[in-house]
């Protein structure tokens, strides 16, 4: 049952990611990316991390993609038209991407597995405990400061210069 759901979500994720790269209208790309992100959230849940699945929907699909859509709508971005890349370049790009993913796939699959646990399901309170433990507390605080810096930076960059 789990495996069937995984294959379904995986196929949907692959299909919508191809729409993301192939669709000339960037708003439709963004919507396809939202579908991909939600499918990935489902797969995260199936892989035993409901906390990360919820965060994926909240942060990625619910906030970052809304930001993308806002920018696309406010900048009134046109679909890509006109002469695209030449066919040789497109073919080369696709071939290189296939080679890249094949290499990545073969390296990942040979990775070290350690002691796998059947029916692994991480309770979310454990996540909080690990995040605030000694090994990750510094990184957690640093990331908080990073977000503050990004917030200030984004406001400064996008602000209109007043006359």
């Amino acid at each position, binding site marked *: 049952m789990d495996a069937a759901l995984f294959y379904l979500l995986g196929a949907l994720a692959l299909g919508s990611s191809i729409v993301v790269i192939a669709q000339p209208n960037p*708003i439709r790309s963004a919507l396809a990316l939202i579908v991909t992100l*939600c499918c990935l*959230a489902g797969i995260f849940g199936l892989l035993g991390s409901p906390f990360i699945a*919820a965060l994926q929907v*909240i942060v990625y699909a619910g906030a970052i993609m809304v930001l993308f859509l*806002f920018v696309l709508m406010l900048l009134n971005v046109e679909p890509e038209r006109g002469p695209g890349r030449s066919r040789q370049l497109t073919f080369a790009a696709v071939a290189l991407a296939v080679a890249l993913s094949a290499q990545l796939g073969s390296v990942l699959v040979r990775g070290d597995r350690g002691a796998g646990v059947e029916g692994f399901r991480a309770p979310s309170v454990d996540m909080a405990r690990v995040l605030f433990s000694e090994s990750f507390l510094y990184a957690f605080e640093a990331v908080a400061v990073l977000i503050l810096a990004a917030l200030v930076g984004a406001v400064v960059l996008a602000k209109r210069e007043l006359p």
Partner: protein
Amino acid sequence: MTPFLEELAIAAVKVGAIIGLLLGLFSFMTWAERRLLALMQFRLGPNRTGPLGLLQPVADGIKLFFKEETIPEGAHRGLFLAAPVIAVVTAFTAIAVVPYGPTLELFGRQVPLQIASLDVGLLFIFAVTSLGVYSVVLAGYASNNKFGLLGGLRSSAQMFSYELTLGMSWVGVIMLAQSFQIADIVGAQAGGFWRWNLALQPLAAFTYFAAATAEVSRTPFDLTEAEQELVAGFHTEYSSMRFALLQMAEYVNIITVAVLAVNLFLGGWHFPFPGVPASPLWFALKVAAVLFVFIWLRGTLPRLRYDQLMAFGWKVLLPLVTLNILVTAALVQAGVL
């Protein structure tokens, strides 16, 4: 019957019951809102259709059903049709994981009054509510209408600004109950109204209620759908059943927010004094009270201007809720709470 089929059957019955209840409550609330607002404004409200005007929602439904459904020229068909669907789906999914009462003993088995009990219950609700923003954005964009687009952008900006405060106001409650699951949070409030989170976390209760009112676009934060502003905001171009779906999604969101308020801050299904057994009846009464407060606010407060609304959300509520998290964390660490 295999255990799996049994579980499926029980879940199907629960789903049917809850959807039926929600639809009934939605119709009743439209009637109640109009009558109560009328009473507050010293007039009568609908009293012709049926006794006390109780068939008014039926009349509204029939009217909307027979209206002509228009799709504006130049609108994105797919997105235009998808927006109400996303609104309704997210609204009903959010209310699926909320418990409505204590675990009942029916036909010799324990039946929790909750469709699905997730390990990350509150986070799931937050996630689904975040997805609800898309219905507003897409409805505004797909309408091919300047007012619709502006209304949609404003409304969705308001929604996700207050969503942050909404989520953070839950953090104090989660810290006290040490769990994301709503059933645990209600369980931690048993034993008298002095143990309710309204008494233990008053600041969080206030910020939650304010943020929730803004999140569902109720007065005083309903600028985006006030009749005098921007025509009708993101649902300008929607008519007939699609408009009815958007309205239904909005009211179900209000009910979700009220149910969460009762579960997280008002002790859920427990009676205010210890000794009386918990039951879904107390839960229903409390939800009715919270919904009455929403209608009361609509009849009483003036609405905020958009910049006042955003300033209130970011400059007042967010610091307050952060302060609440800090103080609660300090008190929990010191062992007081």
